[in-house]
């Protein structure tokens, strides 16, 4: 019983859950899945998508990283609250976390997988996405305002992928969106984030491995 997390080290989606659990001080068993050979537990716990992360709480599996993060916030109903109490102030973070979900991973994948015009198109889109997020952040400390919150958790794992995006597509996130880089640095001061995110060089090593595997030079 207790809390078990089926995950894969480099996954930004898994990292969202690890950060949320750390913020709430929840003890859990971390299980590293080999995605080339998924465990029976994973296939039984997430038969629909067969993906990580999966949080198993007292034997009950919860799937989909943002759903898991909200679940954690609900069950461990104590500070820090990742979503505020007011309905409108809950709707806005849900919208922006969903935006991050819909846009960043897919566009980021195109950045390292494609070349030429398609990659240039993806680069343009990624810059637009980051600028929209920068506008939403404004001059707040975090997307959640003074408090680290839902959107911060949703987006911060992708910050260790920025270096890979920059190397593959030839641009600088800092030059285009300095506010996002500054926000990322503030997040890295938090224990939960510092302990969870990998060095961007290590992530880039992984991306290079993926590129080789997919035959992208």
């Amino acid at each position, binding site marked *: 019983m207790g809390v078990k997390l089926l995950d894969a080290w480099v996954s930004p989606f898994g990292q969202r859950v690890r950060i949320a659990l750390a913020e709430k001080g929840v003890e859990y068993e971390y299980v590293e899945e080999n995605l080339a050979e998924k465990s029976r537990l994973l296939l039984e716990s997430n038969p*629909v998508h067969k993906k990580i992360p999966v949080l198993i*709480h007292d034997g*009950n599996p*919860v*799937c*989909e990283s943002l*759903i*898991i993060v*909200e*679940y954690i916030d*609900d*069950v461990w109903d104590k500070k820090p609250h990742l979503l505020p109490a007011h*309905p*409108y102030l*809950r*709707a806005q973070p*849900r*919208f922006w976390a*969903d*935006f991050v979900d819909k846009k960043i991973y897919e566009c980021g994948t195109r950045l390292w997988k494609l070349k030429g015009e398609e990659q240039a198109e993806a680069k343009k889109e990624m810059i637009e996405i980051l600028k*929209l997020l920068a506008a939403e952040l404004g001059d707040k400390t975090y997307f959640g305002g003074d408090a680290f919150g839902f959107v911060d958790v949703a987006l911060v794992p992708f910050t260790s992928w920025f270096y890979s995006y920059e190397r593959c597509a030839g641009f600088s996130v800092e030059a285009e969106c300095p506010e996002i880089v500054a926000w990322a640095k503030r997040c890295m001061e938090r224990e939960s984030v510092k302990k969870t995110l990998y060095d961007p060089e290590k992530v880039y090593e992984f991306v290079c491995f993926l590129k080789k595997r997919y035959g992208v030079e």
Partner: protein
Amino acid sequence: MAKEVKLLGQWVSPYVLRVQIALELKGVSYEYLEQQFGENKSELLLKSNPVYKKVPVLIHKDRPICESAIILQYIDEVWGAGGPAVLPSDPYERAIACFWVSYIDDKFGPSLVGLIRGKTDEENAAAAEQAILGLELLEEAYEKSSRGKRFFGGDDVGYLDIVLGSSLRWIEVIEIMRGIKLLDNAKFPLLMAWAERFRAAAVVKKLMPEAGKLMEYAKEVQARMNAAAAN
């Protein structure tokens, strides 16, 4: 006095229908503003949903809320007292309901759109396969989550009922257009019975678009697509 609640919608959209059902269930009075199709988007829509420029958008006290699943949660939280809870109160049950809503929006819904827009036999076959797989999963999910009760949510229409139920009219239209059976009584007896109960609910009967009108609209869309493809 301007209404405190406005809904920007389009009558054909199942996503808009979801929001209308939720508002009616909670007894919220609102001003409905039908939006134009195509490129002529209203200033209000562009201002309220600059990111996606789509309906539905709920505007409450001049503040916009976008994305139907998020709007439904908002309605449930703000007008909690107006009617039975739309989302389950138990966090685990809520996570399961959200999981299926996410599945419907990410996989099942797009397979229906694929069936409407498919140009080749292969595309249509692939979309139909995905749609039927979705129904198989949802039949199982209904059995597990309803525990013998009338709806996914239990005794009352809930989150998942609204999200899946809002696509029923489109499923009917697709079945006629494509000459296929999706909601097959033999394969999905529980969902068929659930669908009848859902359609019979007073609030749904009042709001569901007419099958005939939706069919006409679908034919127009197809004709426009064929014309564009021919050029």
